[in-house]
């Protein structure tokens, strides 16, 4: 009996030893890489922001001046929308909104929309999506420059009915074999503009959230 117990104990200790070695190895590597990984994540966020808003137009730490809003009426879902506030010498210059639309063909499409304080779009990018490769992916800048068609647009340019894909009577082209994807993007951008025109002032006033948690872009 005792020899069985001793045997079991030996096995348990050995297994624990392997676990301890593995865990301490990981703890070491984590400590070594943590700072670099945070840097990399910050770099990715800033690179994406700079794609929609030229870095010369603001002088604050754009990726840190951020608030989160939820508004089911304006966006059609209650998922968090991140709003980055660009300022030049303290004056409000532009907002960059990071939001999802669930109206795509397959899952969420995540968008960045930058709007200057006069209501004009500085840029739009799709930063992640699961649309069909080859059909829905011309919303990516790497595949086509369709997304650049939003540059310089605003709520009155085109007017309300124009904010749709051509098949629905609007001015934005759809892709061969894929109407759902561009329709979802156009609708989401229009919603952002409407939200912006109603809430522009307060969006710049709200205190920025503490960084360091919920870093998901």
């Amino acid at each position: 009996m005792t020899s069985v117990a001793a045997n079991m104990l030996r096995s348990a200790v050995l297994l624990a030893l392997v676990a301890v070695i593995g865990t301490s190895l990981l703890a070491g590597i984590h400590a070594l890489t943590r700072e670099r990984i945070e840097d990399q994540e910050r770099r990715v966020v800033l690179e994406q922001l700079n794609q929609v808003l030229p870095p010369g137009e603001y002088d604050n730490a754009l990726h840190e001046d951020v608030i989160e809003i939820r508004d089911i009426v304006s966006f059609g879902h209650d998922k968090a929308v991140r709003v980055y506030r660009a300022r030049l010498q303290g004056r409000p210059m532009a907002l960059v909104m990071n939001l999802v639309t669930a109206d795509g063909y397959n899952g969420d499409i995540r968008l960045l929309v930058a709007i200057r304080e006069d209501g004009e779009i500085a840029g739009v990018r799709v930063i992640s999506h699961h649309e069909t490769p080859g059909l829905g992916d011309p919303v990516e800048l790497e595949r086509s420059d369709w997304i650049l068609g939003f540059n310089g647009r605003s709520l009155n340019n085109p007017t309300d009915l124009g904010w749709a894909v051509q098949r629905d009577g609007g001015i934005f082209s759809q892709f061969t074999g894929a109407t759902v994807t561009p329709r979802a993007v156009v609708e989401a951008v229009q919603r952002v503009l409407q939200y912006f025109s109603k809430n522009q002032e307060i969006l710049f006033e709200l205190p920025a959230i503490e960084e360091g948690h919920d870093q998901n872009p």
Partner: protein
Amino acid sequence: MTRTPELKTIFMDGLWHQNTGLVVLLGLCPLLAVTGTVINGLGLGLATMLTLMASNLSVSLLRGLLRPEIRIPAYVLIIASVVTALELLMQAWMHDLYRILGIFIPLIVTNCAIIGRAEAFASRNQPVPALVDGFATGLGFCLTLVLLGALREITGRGALFADAHLMFGSLGDKLTITVIPDHPGFLLAILPPGAFIGLGLLIAARNWWQARRAESVHVAAVASPQAVT
């Protein structure tokens, strides 16, 4: 204890005779999922290779210590630690590639080829042969991923080495080759069915080659029996 085979035999087994992707057919989930382009295949292939080498080496070093009843949980612990370490390192130094391969890196843990080599080879052999076995098996897997990636990228997009900058930095931009100019894109090859069809073709090609070689050896043996020993 079985006799350790020669290093050359270990190498050829991992690379060709027991190729994980084409003969043993293990680890097919990542193989089929990431091979849309050469670079994605290469990235996951190298990560798998490093994991195999590290896990084989650790298992071989610990083989005297690990008793039969705890060996499987110990392998799982070792492999999971190695993969997590690799994931952290990749996140720190190859962040853009990590963002593409992201969800497939943790899945390396579930690649049965790795625990298979730990159990079948590393636990019974010296560290050096175990390391060579990990390298050869990983290389065989990696080459399969790259081949399948190339096949799908050429037919699907008409290019090779797209997105190479994710792995090689600014150097990679010049690597991209347009194989078929103005390729309209062939969806089937990019989507998952293309992976199954491509893998099927690769396996068939390997079998055909193997059969042809066996035949020519046979013919040679008949012609001059003493030439083959």
